[in-house]
């Protein structure tokens, strides 16, 4: 439902999707007020480097700011205020300082929070929180930790875990062990060759892999000033560590919406939206990691990737301003681990077959295509930037509404996987 150009728009969550919604609204000529409320007191920033170059010190916080100081967006940033509730009538949100912000449309972009390991069941030992990676604060804590000579255990087998593990090697860790659910990380989702390529690259740099199994909990003990941790795996095996980094997934930040009347999914508590980003509450929209659009619910698209958040923000900005409708493109993600640049595009998560087109796991130059019912649905390249870009551009939906194609309806519901 388009609103008039002078309406007041409120964006909850000053992250990637929030920034791009505001940017898109201005680009489409919205003249009314745009207010972005964020609980963090720092300027809005981009997250991908937090598990990569930020940890090694190659990039700084300023490098990651989303807004361009030389060409700033015309929006009101309200920082350091958590939003605690939503009211439908009058439409608006309540902040944790007791304030109420009224608006003509509310766009929710609160992202997700990192899951962590619970304390292990035991009658001895205490619990010290492991490092997680979601916010700049989290990454700063890990960046400031002294890894020199430390035994590091990274819990999780997704890209976030593998990226973080890769950064520990250059920081002087004595040992880095990845505790993942799979023997070949990512093999179930991306196919065996990709899992092999990842494992080979990590092992070549000295990273070890614990026997595959679910991590059940964490136990910590002090001897003098130093803390030792034990990660308890399914089956009772224990991994000892000085430093534990936990990257086992993320949960939508929607706890504040529980009594708001905005429908959430039963399993993940993500905000349910149609494919324009609209919830069933008039004037309330959602994008990014906190949301599950109809295409996600039906298994057509994966959630939890950067590109997804940017594109959804673009769709909402077009919806709200009545601009030409914008289509979501083929899903896309990338990851950097050592000198591997992994890029995947298309509907990899719902493929039933994969095929190596070129390269080998050992050489770190794989090009793999994915099929479903014999039809090509996705591509993944390791250090294959040109191939992946060409694949995406060939399938790009240009924004003339008449040409819109509809997607094949197959697959199951994926969850946040980073």
């Amino acid at each position: 439902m388009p609103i008039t150009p002078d309406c007041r728009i409120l964006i909850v969550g000053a992250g990637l999707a929030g920034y791009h919604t505001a940017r898109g609204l201005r680009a489409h000529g919205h003249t009314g007020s745009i207010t972005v409320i964020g609980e963090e007191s720092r300027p809005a920033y981009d997250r991908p480097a937090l598990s990569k170059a930020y940890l090694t010190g190659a990039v700084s916080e300023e490098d990651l700011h989303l807004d361009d100081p030389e060409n700033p967006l015309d929006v009101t940033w309200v920082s350091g205020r958590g939003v605690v509730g939503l009211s439908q009538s009058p439409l608006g949100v309540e902040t944790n300082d007791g304030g109420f912000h009224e608006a003509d449309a509310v766009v929710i972009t609160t992202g997700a929070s990192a899951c962590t390991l619970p304390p292990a069941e035991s009658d001895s030992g205490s619990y010290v929180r492991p490092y997680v990676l979601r916010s700049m604060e989290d990454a700063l804590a890990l960046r400031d930790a002294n890894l020199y000579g430390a035994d590091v255990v990274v819990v999780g087998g997704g890209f976030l875990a593998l990226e973080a593990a890769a950064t520990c090697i250059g920081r002087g860790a004595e040992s880095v062990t990845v505790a993942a659910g799979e023997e070949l990380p990512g093999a179930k989702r991306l196919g065996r060759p990709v899992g092999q390529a990842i494992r080979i690259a990590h092992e070549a740099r000295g990273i070890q892999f614990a026997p595959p199994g679910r991590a059940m909990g964490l136990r910590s003990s002090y001897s003098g000033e130093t803390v030792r941790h034990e990660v308890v795996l399914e089956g009772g095996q224990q991994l000892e560590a000085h430093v534990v980094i936990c990257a086992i997934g993320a949960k939508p930040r929607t706890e504040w919406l529980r009594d708001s009347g905005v429908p959430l999914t039963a399993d993940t508590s993500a905000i349910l939206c149609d494919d324009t980003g609209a919830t069933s509450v008039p004037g309330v929209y959602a994008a990014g990691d906190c949301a599950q659009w109809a295409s996600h619910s039906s298994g057509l698209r994966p959630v939890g990737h950067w590109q997804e958040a940017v594109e959804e923000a673009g769709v909402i900005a077009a919806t709200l301003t009545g601009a030409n409708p914008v289509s979501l493109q083929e899903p896309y993600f990338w990851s950097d681990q050592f000198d591997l640049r992994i890029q995947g595009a298309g509907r990899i998560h719902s493929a039933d077959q994969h095929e190596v087109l070129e390269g080998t796991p050992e050489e770190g130059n794989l090009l793999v295509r994915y099929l479903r019912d014999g039809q090509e649905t996705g591509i993944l390249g390791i250090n294959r930037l040109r191939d992946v870009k060409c694949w995406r551009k060939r399938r790009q939906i240009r924004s003339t509404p008449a040409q819109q194609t509809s997607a094949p309806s197959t697959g199951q519901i994926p969850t946040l996987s980073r």
Partner: protein
Amino acid sequence: MRIDSVNPPIAVFLTDEGDVHAIDDTCTHQDASLAAGWVEDCRVECPLHESTFSLLTGEVDQPPAKRGVRVHEVELEGDDVLVELSDKAPQLPPGVTL
């Protein structure tokens, strides 16, 4: 085509219209080679994200990159492409040094 005998490397493009252009090869957002990007309408789209750079002016159209790249002057002499390197300072992405 990426030419890395100079530092920082440059990218030389032959467009569908038959024109030759040379710009800095490294995207200003992250360390990605623009020579591996997608060329259309006299712009190159970065192979990693969606910023595009003008082959004529080097300016960038949209995030995540915020800065443009340098454009180098190109002259054609028979089959040879002569590139005169810009004397401006390059805009390298954070974490990448000369």
